[in-house]
């Protein structure tokens, strides 16, 4: 039993080490007493045992303990959840059970908060009957066309499509093509406000186009980032604003960079926001209630929750020099693949 537990638990390793030490020491002592008449060197035998045990202890107890300790420290500092819940060397079976219980609480809590937004959509959907909304918008559009107000007709159409995507479709994962289409639609609505002053460019390698557009990601990943770039970056800029969405595909990842040449952010705010984006997702509750940048944090939390801590958002910005929001996602060419990544993350969290 002790040997079995010693494979994993630090407490069992300490117990095993003490047992080995005691046994070896007695043996060495007996051997020394037996051989001492022939050679005094035999007296060194009991001294070798502590050295051997110290080496074993360093390798099999101290190093795993340091790793666990570091994980717990980082967990306390708000850096990571996943790895702490999945630690290689728990202190004892009791600690492991306690961590398991904490994990259950987290998972439930996070599922509750993740589904909260979904529930908000549902509530919104119930309050505003989507068909009633679409019909009304369609009515406005028809009247506008009849009256020759093409701008109003186009704007109404864009708004209707935007609502249709946001409210009606309750699928969690969508293709990048759909997401880009929604962003372009949203951008069209914003362009009615800003006119030609605002431009958007989507850039990618032509060779990757087919694969890129097939990639699956969380619904409403890009639109909140684009909205943030327009409202906090470009709106306050007097000169022309350019929004660039750069898409890159690697063997395992989809990298999306949303850049604006707007007013940028002060260093302190960038640091603060990045620290929160980097922190474990439950750490961001306080930030949400008192600061801006909620949209980015929400998107980041959803990505981390679904795909794991190695994915998410990072911000590069300098005041007066614009902002780049880098989104790192798993490369999932279809819904099934995306769900497999998500399930992998969930399994890691629940092992």
């Amino acid at each position, binding site marked *: 039993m002790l040997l079995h537990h010693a494979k994993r638990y630090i407490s069992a390793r300490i117990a095993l080490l003490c047992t080995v030490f005691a046994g070896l020491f007695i043996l060495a002592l007996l051997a020394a007493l037996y051989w001492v008449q022939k050679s005094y060197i035999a007296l060194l035998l009991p001294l070798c045992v502590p050295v051997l045990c110290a080496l074993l202890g360093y390798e099999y107890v101290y190093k795993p303990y340091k*790793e666990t300790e*570091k*994980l717990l420290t*980082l967990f306390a500092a708000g*850096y*990571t959840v996943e*790895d702490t819940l999945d630690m*290689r060397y728990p202190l004892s079976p009791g600690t492991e059970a306690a961590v398991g219980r904490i994990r259950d609480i987290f998972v439930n809590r996070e599922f509750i908060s993740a589904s909260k937004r979904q529930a908000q959509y549902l509530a919104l959907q119930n309050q505003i009957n989507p068909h009633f909304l679409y019909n009304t918008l369609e009515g406005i559009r028809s009247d506008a066309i009849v009256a020759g107000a093409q701008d109003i007709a186009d704007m109404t159409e864009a708004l209707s499509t935007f609502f249709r995507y946001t409210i009606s479709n309750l699928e969690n994962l969508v293709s990048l093509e759909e997401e880009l289409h929604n962003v372009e639609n949203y951008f069209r609505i914003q362009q009615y406000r800003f006119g030609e002053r605002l431009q958007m460019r989507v850039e990618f*390698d032509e*060779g*990757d186009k087919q*694969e890129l557009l097939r990639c699956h990601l969380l619904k409403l990943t890009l639109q909140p980032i684009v909205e943030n770039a327009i409202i906090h970056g470009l709106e306050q800029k007097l000169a022309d604003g350019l929004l660039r969405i*750069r898409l*890159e*595909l*690697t*063997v*395992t*990842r989809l*990298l999306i*960079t949303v850049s604006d*040449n707007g007013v940028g952010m002060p*260093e302190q705010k*960038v*640091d603060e926001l*990045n*620290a929160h984006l*980097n922190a474990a997702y439950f750490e961001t509750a306080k930030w949400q209630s008192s600061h801006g940048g909620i949209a980015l944090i929400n998107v980041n939390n959803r990505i981390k929750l679904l795909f794991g801590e*190695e994915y998410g958002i*990072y911000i*590069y*910005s*300098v005041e*007066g*020099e*614009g902002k*780049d929001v*880098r989104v*790192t996602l798993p490369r999932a060419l279809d819904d099934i693949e995306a769900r497999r990544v998500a399930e992998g993350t969930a399994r890691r969290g629940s092992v």
Partner: protein
Amino acid sequence: MREELFRMERVSCLENGATLLNNVNLHIFSGEIMGLLCINDVGLEALIGLMCVNTPLHFGRVYFFERLVNDYKHSGLDENPAAVIERRSRLVDSLTVSDNVFVLRGSFHEHIISRREMDRRFEAYARELGVPIAGDCYVDQLSAHERCVVEMLRAVNTGKRLIILRDLSSFLGDRELAEIQRLMARYAGRGVSFLYVCSHEKELSALCDRVAVLENGKIQKLAERGGQAALSLPRRRAREPRPLTREPDWQGPPALSFSGVDTPNLRGLSLSVYPGECVALIAQEEEAGDVISLALGEIQPRRGALSLAGKQARRLIAGSVAVIDEKPERRMVFPDLSYLDNLCFWADKRMPCLWRSRRILRSVAQEYYPVAGESIYAADIRYLPIKELYTLIYCRVAFAHPKAVVCLKPFDAIDLSLRQHVMGLIDMLCERGIAVLILSPSVSATSFFADRLLTTPKN
């Protein structure tokens, strides 16, 4: 689809409680030339170190070829396929070039070495790349440029996929740099990636696909090729904007003049530097060495004439022209003396009773207080920051007030914030009517600063 060679994800690194790297995210694709513009040096060593060896992290993950090689939970201390090329050589001087390239690598297991075969292989290799270096040449006979080329060949030959080039313009001339860049482009086409570390934005924007801006251990901004925003950052970031207050006296005689000077490494050098003027001479190491020897009065020209403040001389008198050496904070301060004693060190010839008179010393301290600040009263200068040591050296020159000062590579291998500081100090010398001659191997370091730019025929 691009192959991601290197990725650093949310990496934080601490040392003795100080944060060296703070939440750093960086990725480099295969075959990409990535630039790293350093506003200051904080975290640079740690960043390069982590690219080469998997040392412990405070937090974050490092990937090579999309495979996790280092994370905060476990660091294997093993090496990554990355090599650094910098001023310091990593070759064995007493061995030949082909020994360094072919023999000194882990995968070399042959028991009998055919030198002729190895040299022949190296020469074929070098010829293919258009690099005229002989395989049997000893490393200590190579020039800095050749050494860099050999290091690059060696890195590629030993399977390194990421080559970090650090401050090459601080010791290579423009022509040599262009040659290295040609090789970089060639290897980039074969999938080798480069991280080009430099503090000159023009150099980076001309060469790199993307540029990351490093400041205080953080990547502040990423700029794609053609995106000028991030590259204009350093100028905007200069905390003390440099007012152009220089007013050279071009009417009077030049403070320092060389007319048709011949030395072992110079042929017919003619140049004049006027009081208050800053002239940059783009010269190779040995040419710069001769100019310094002439300025120090160590040699006299074989032919031609020198003049100081309009007076011709066969040889300059030692001490009449000041020389500020490369890396002066290491070579030109006396750690056992106080700040004030260091400051007055060159002025004792002008004022013999300087050391005895407390009144004069007090007056000197008062005069230089606006430039040096509280540090001027420091009794122990060993713990002063590097900026303060630079201030001390330039103030020493200003106080000694020579007609001219020759500065050897004043902007090379220093970070951007220190560069701004040194510019301010050189301006201070010019404002005091001292002629400044800057010797540098590359244009990029000086072109934006000097009043005139001269170059020797070799460059």
